[in-house]
């Protein structure tokens, strides 16, 4: 139905007729231009959710043009556990006509459209949604006063949303003040003016469309919640892991990790160097590690390709190192501001020669933090390079999670410069390598050489084929030793069944939701998620045995032979024909519905439309 409140006929000021409708979870999509600061609305809502013990997940797009342009920010918040940013929206806020045109399709039937009546003319004949015109631009200008132009529209809209969902005013106001304090008093005042104006608007203009989040008591850890994006989580995870040194070169979407570390590390007595290119960066990082201080470098696809030679040296010289790859659309410069998981094969096989190394992939923002710590642990324990594969989606996505127990976690970064015993060898054939960093005395009086040439146990170059075989085995076996210690992977769902959904990295969330949906309609299935992608934990073949189909879901191409990159690796190891592949390369994170749909093609083509339909109606539809 069309709302009685059209811009032309404001409904006057009676109080809302109906009590607020109770909801569990809502997806709000804000569509405007990147300049309008819609990201910050999302930011506020996310952090508010955190402070309100609600779960939240956001999703945004960055315009691919330099000068900014159309951009969206989607926030999903609720009282249940939230695993994906939501396929489609319950509420759409359209700032411009182009926003309306481009995104009205993403609104679920029964959903609510809020549009800036100063800029947007919606299709009045469209009866699928509740349409509410709001003079966002003029409302903002009025409230703040002519000078400020339409700056503050985002805060005005924040006010409106606060009112519609009965959000915690005090906390929200506090957040707004915190955010703008640094920018001076009148910026804060203007912001609050816009906010209050927005907050007041529904009261005077809407009869219904008021909501309240159900207070279901979820088991909360009791710990405070923190709200941040994936790149920040990686950076702070590294700091918690005692990483104090790094070097890199900028590239989107990696840059913010280096920007945070460059700003933060000095507070911890550390150094982060911006280098002339990615090769210099990994070299400088290896130099840091050589002094006994595990270092980090990182980039995105193009930069990773440049690091392949030096990474091979790290494997050969057995030098610990952390390399972060924030994956984006490839190949080459590709789709720099979109998400993809297509750098997996390179992470494992990108360097010439047999160069085993470790590859980890976080599944969500919280995992970015803990995976960074785990990467550091492994790099130190096995004196090996470790690659963390995150992606553009994770990098900018905001989530809420329990504040980590730092007191328990924090790692002391002190390098071990103690004197090494007379029997010290840098490359013992019968044990793990642990280097004597520059600065450490050697009781033997014999100082070690680290090298990229094949070498004997003392690091001296050799042309011996026998030693090459032994050292190649040493480098291989230590990674297998790590594999033997890995925890069993996360397996959720039926112990046996038709389908086992397998994921790595950020496809975890939508896959998990997909599992819930297909099980709702009676499919016996489970979801196996692998955070350790190389080496794989042992024993997967036992799990695979229990399902008719192993459906590997990942964001990359099907390749020449019809299998995504991770599916290729699993098939190579297990030679199990039941392993099939679900891939896509549209630069967007998987929608739950996409996964459900493709699974249905792999399990006796059973029709899962029911489950698809299930979640298709808006949570805001009139009861």
């Amino acid at each position, binding site marked *: 139905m069309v709302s009685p409140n059209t811009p032309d006929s404001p409904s006057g000021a009676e109080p809302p007729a109906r009590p607020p409708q109770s909801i569990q979870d809502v997806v709000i999509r804000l569509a405007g231009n990147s300049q309008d600061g819609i990201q910050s609305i999302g930011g506020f809502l996310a952090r508010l959710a955190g402070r309100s013990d609600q779960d939240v997940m956001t999703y945004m797009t960055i315009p691919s043009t330099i000068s900014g342009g159309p951009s969206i920010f989607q926030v999903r918040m609720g009282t249940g556990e939230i695993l994906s940013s939501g396929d489609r929206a319950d509420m759409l806020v359209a700032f411009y006509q182009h926003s309306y045109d481009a995104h009205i399709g993403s609104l679920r039937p029964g959903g609510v459209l809020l549009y800036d009546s100063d800029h947007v003319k919606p299709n009045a004949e469209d009866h699928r949604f509740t349409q509410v015109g709001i003079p966002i631009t003029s409302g903002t200008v009025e409230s703040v006063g002519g000078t400020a132009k339409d700056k503050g529209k985002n805060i005005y809209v924040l006010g409106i949303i606060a009112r519609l969902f009965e959000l915690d005013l005090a906390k929200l106001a506090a957040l707004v003040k915190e955010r703008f304090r640094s920018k001076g008093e009148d910026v804060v005042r203007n912001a609050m003016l816009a906010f209050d104006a927005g907050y007041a608007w529904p009261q005077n203009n809407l009869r219904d469309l008021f909501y309240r989040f159900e207070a279901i008591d979820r088991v909360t850890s009791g710990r405070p919640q*923190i709200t941040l994006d994936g790149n920040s989580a990686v950076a702070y995870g590294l700091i918690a892991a005692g990483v104090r040194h790094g070097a890199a070169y900028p590239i989107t979407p990696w840059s913010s990790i280096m920007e945070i570390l460059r700003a933060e590390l000095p507070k911890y007595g550390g150094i982060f*160097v911006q280098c002339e290119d990615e090769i210099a960066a990994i070299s400088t990082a290896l130099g840091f590690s050589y*002094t006994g201080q595990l270092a980090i470098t990182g980039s995105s696809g193009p930069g990773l390709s440049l690091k392949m030679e030096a990474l091979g040296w790290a494997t050969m010289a057995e030098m610990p190192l952390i390399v972060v790859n924030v994956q984006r659309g490839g190949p080459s410069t590709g789709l720099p501001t979109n998400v993809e998981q297509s750098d997996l094969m390179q992470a494992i096989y990108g360097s010439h020669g047999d160069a085993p190394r470790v590859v980890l992939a976080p599944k969500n923002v919280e995992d970015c933090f803990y995976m960074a710590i785990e990467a550091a642990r492994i790099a130190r324990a096995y004196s090996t390079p470790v690659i963390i594969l995150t992606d553009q989606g994770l990098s900018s996505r905001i989530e809420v999670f329990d504040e980590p127990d730092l007191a328990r976690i924090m790692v002391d970064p002190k390098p071990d410069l103690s004197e090494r015993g007379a029997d010290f060898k840098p490359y013992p054939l019968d044990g793990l390598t642990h280097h004597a960093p520059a*600065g450490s005395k050697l009781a033997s009086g014999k*100082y070690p*050489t680290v090298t990229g040439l094949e070498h004997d146990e003392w690091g001296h170059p050799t042309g011996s084929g026998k030693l090459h075989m032994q050292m190649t085995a040493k480098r291989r076996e230590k990674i297998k030793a790590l594999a033997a210690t890995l925890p069993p992977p996360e397996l959720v769902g039926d112990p046996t069944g038709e389908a086992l959904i397998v994921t790595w990295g950020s496809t975890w969330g939508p896959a998990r939701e997909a599992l819930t949906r297909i099980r709702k309609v009676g499919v016996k299935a489970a979801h196996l998620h692998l955070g350790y992608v190389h080496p794989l934990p042992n024993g997967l073949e036992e799990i695979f045995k229990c399902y008719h189909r192993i459906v590997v879901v990942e964001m990359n191409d099907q390749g020449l032979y019809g299998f995504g990159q991770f599916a290729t690796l699993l098939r190579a190891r297990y030679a199990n024909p039941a392993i099939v592949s679900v891939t896509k390369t549209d630069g967007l994170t998987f929608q739950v519905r996409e996964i459900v749909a493709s699974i249905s093609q792999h399990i006796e083509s059973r029709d899962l439309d029911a489950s698809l339909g299930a979640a298709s109606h808006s949570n805001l539809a009139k009861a």
Partner: protein
Amino acid sequence: MSSAVATPPLPAGAPLTKKALTADHPTWCPGCGDFAVLASFYRALEKLQYPQEKIVTFAGIGCSSRFPYFVNTHGGHYIHGRSVPFAAGISLGNDDQHVFVFGGDGDGFSIGGNHLVHAARKNVNLTYVIMDNFVYGLTKKQTSPTSPIGFKSKTDLTGAVDQPINPMRTLVNSGASFVARSHATQVNHMTEMMLRAARHNGFSVVEILSECVEFYDGAFDAAIPRKGGTWTLIDEKKHDGTPEDAKRHDVTDEVAAFALAGQPWPGLFGVFYENKERPTKNALEAGLIAKARERTKGASDLDVLQATFARLR
């Protein structure tokens, strides 16, 4: 194998001798200029008497870059052309270390040319010795960026055609704060240049003409008196106000150094440029740390991160 035989550790306080500093026997060709560079480095270290564990000898790839295997200090053999940024990591990662980088003209001026420039402009505190033989030795005689026009190599059978770089000019322009030039037949001079470079606080570089007897025989005879060559040292300004001092080279004058680098072959030897004023990257980063710690009032790592998280609630 030799490496299995451990050199007896130095008794505490004992002087650091060539004996203690000697490692594997060099694999260079008999007569290679690099032997003399190694000998001079031993002598320089004997004079400097740094604690053995505080010396790092690093290199890229090339005949000259095998250097670290022959020096019994911490050290390593990295990949081709990237030893300078690696060494920058060592220097910045542990400011107590005395970092020496050795390499060839191909390693330093061809594939590694850009790293040299950026480490130099940042003035990272380390000493870089380029053993320039005007040819690619390890790969057996291809043209290098310092090979003169007309040099017959495997990649220029009829003689090199590309204008070579001018190493001194390149180094002066790079922003290196100490730039010197020497010759592998002049052990005393090499040693002196290495000493001054090592003692310089900042990015110091010494180019040493070191003959490849195998693939570029006689390349540097023009600077060897007993072979009829001329060995001319730079006459450094003494600032003694004497009239003759006016004509002397002012090592703090970049333009003069640039001009000096233009002298006809075989050119001059000694210190072309020296800048004691520029802060090192090491000092600049230490400054950032000090400032940051001031702001955090030296709070513990745990407290700092805790506070950050508090702001993220």
